[in-house]
C-alpha cells in the first residue's frame, strides 16, 4: 500500500539522523525546562487555579512533547521546495492524490518524531519533575485519539501552507505566521481558560486549540471525550479545504526551476 511505503520511507530517512536529532531533543528539553521553571516561579505566589502548581508543570511538559507531533512537522510538508524545483509537476502527475502522498510521508515523519523525540523527552520530564500518569486506562485511549487528530490537523494546515507556494513561491512566512499564531492560540504556554475572553473566543474559532490544549486536557483527565468532536469537525473541514485547494492548484501549476 502506498501509504505504508511512503510513511516507512520517511521514517527510515529520519532514522539516519538519529544522532544529530539527539541534539534537538536536548534543546527542546531545555526550552521546556525554562517554561516549567517560570510556572514554578509563578506557582510560589499563587495556587494556580484548577491546575495547581504541579498540574501546570505537567501541562507544560506534555505540551512541549506534543510540539514534536504538531508544530514541529515538515515546513509546508516540503511542497514549497517542490514548487521551487519544479518537482511539484511530477508529483501532480502521479496516479495518487497530492494530499495523500504528502500526508503519507508526513505520518512517517510524525511516527519517528513521536518515538524519538516526544517519548524520550516526556520520560525525562516524568522523572525530573515527578509527574503522574493518568490512573484511568480510558484516558490513554482518548488522549491517543486527541493526539492523532492533532497530528492530522497539523498535516492539513501545513498542506495548505505548502500549496500556497504555488501562488506566492515563498511560503515561509505562512509557516512562521502559523507557528506564532499557533503557539498563542493553542494554549502552549498559558491554558486557554486563563486568557482574556476575546482571545479565547478567537482561538476556539480556529483549529489551534485541538493541537495542544485539548489533547493535554484529555491527558490530564480534565475533559471528557466530547471535547474531541470539535477536532473531528475541523478534520473534515480542513480535509475538504485541502482537496479544494489542490483542485485550484492543478489549474495554477507553473513549472519553476530547471
Amino acid at each position, binding site marked *: 500500500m502506498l501509504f505504508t511505503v511512503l510513511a516507512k520511507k520517511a521514517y527510515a530517512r529520519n532514522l539516519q539522523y538519529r544522532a544529530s536529532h539527539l*541534539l534537538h531533543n536536548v534543546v527542546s528539553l531545555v526550552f521546556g525546562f525554562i517554561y516549567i521553571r517560570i510556572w514554578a516561579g509563578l506557582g510560589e*505566589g499563587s495556587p494556580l487555579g484548577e491546575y495547581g502548581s504541579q498540574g501546570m508543570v505537567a501541562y507544560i511538559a506534555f505540551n512541549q512533547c506534543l510540539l514534536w507531533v504538531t508544530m514541529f512537522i515538515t515546513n509546508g510538508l516540503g511542497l514549497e521546495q517542490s514548487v521551487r524545483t519544479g518537482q511539484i509537476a511530477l508529483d501532480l502527475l502521479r496516479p495518487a492524490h497530492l494530499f495523500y502522498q504528502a500526508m503519507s510521508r508526513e505520518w512517517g515523519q510524525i511516527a519517528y518524531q513521536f518515538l524519538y523525540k516526544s517519548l524520550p523527552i516526556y520520560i525525562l520530564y516524568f522523572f525530573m519533575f515527578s509527574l503522574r500518569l493518568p490512573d484511568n486506562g480510558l484516558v490513554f485511549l482518548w488522549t491517543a485519539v486527541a493526539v492523532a487528530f492533532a497530528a492530522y490537523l497539523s498535516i492539513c494546515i501545513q498542506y495548505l501552507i505548502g500549496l500556497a507556494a504555488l501562488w506566492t513561491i515563498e511560503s515561509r*512566512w505562512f509557516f512562521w*505566521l502559523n507557528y*506564532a499564531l499557533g503557539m498563542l492560540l493553542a494554549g502552549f*504556554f498559558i491554558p486557554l481558560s486563563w486568557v482574556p475572553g476575546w482571545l479565547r473566543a478567537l482561538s476556539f474559532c480556529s483549529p489551534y486549540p485541538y493541537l495542544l490544549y485539548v489533547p493535554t486536557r484529555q491527558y490530564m483527565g480534565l475533559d471528557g471525550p466530547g471535547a474531541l468532536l470539535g477536532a473531528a469537525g475541523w478534520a473534515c473541514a480542513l480535509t475538504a479545504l485541502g482537496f479544494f485547494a489542490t483542485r485550484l492548484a492543478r489549474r495554477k501549476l507553473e513549472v519553476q526551476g530547471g
Partner: protein
Amino acid sequence: MKANLRLYVLLIRASVRGAMQYKFNFIGSAFVSALVQFSEFLMVALVLVRFGSVDGWSWYEVGYLCGVMTLARALYRSFASDVHYLEKYLVSGDLDPLLLRPVPLLLALMTQNVRLLVGDLAQGALLVAVCLRELLASGQADWTAIPLTLLAIVSGAVLLFAIGLATAACGFWLTRIEALQNMSEDAARSAAQYPLTLYPRWMRTLLLVALPVGLVSYVPALYIVRGEYGAWLLVAAAGAAAVFLLLALRLWTLGVSRYQSTGS
C-alpha cells in the same frame, strides 16, 4: 578600520537596495518577524496580567527585560545579518565566492541579505518605552534610566553578536550548527528574558558566565530599574561584551583558517 567602516556602510546600503527590489517580500518579512516576537511576548504578558508578578518582578519590570532583549537581538540581527546563516554557506559552498572578494570575510557576511528588523525594533522600543514610563512615573527609576537603557541595549547587542559569531565560528569545524544556535542563541535568550532567580544555581551561573546572555538585560535591569548593587553592573556588562567580542573574533579567525570547502 575607517576604510572598512566606509565599505560596511556602502555594502549595507547596496544590500538594502537589493532587497527593496522585492518590496512586498521585504515588508512582509519584517511584519511577520514582528508578529512572531509579539505573540511570544503576548504569551508572557498574558500570564503576568493574570498573576501579577514573577518571582517578585512586576509586569513592567519583566516587560522591560523582554523589551531590552528584543531590541538588542534586533540590532544584532540587523547589523550582522548573514553571520547567523553561515551554515547555509558552508553546506552549499557559497562561502568560496565571498572569500575571493577583496573585503574581510566577516564584513562580507555581515552585509549579505541585510534585513532591517523594523518591526522587531519598533515593538521592542514600544515595550521599553511603556515600561520605562511607568517605572519613571512610579518613581522607581529616575531619568538616568533612559541613557543607561540605551547603553545596555548597545552593549547587549554587541554581546549577542559575540555569542552568535562564536557559535557560527564553530561551524568551520562542525558544518551543521543549527541545533547549536538554537541552544546558544534562542534557548539562552528565552531564558534570559525572565528574572534569572527562577532557575537553579548552576543554570544561573551558566547564563552569567559561560553563555552570558544574562548580562544583556537581566544584570543591567537589576541596577537600572531595581536599583540593586550599583552602576558598576553596567560597566561590568559592557566590559564583558567587549571581552567576549574579542574572544569571538579570535575564534572566528582561527575558524576561517581551518575552512575547507565542500565537495562537488
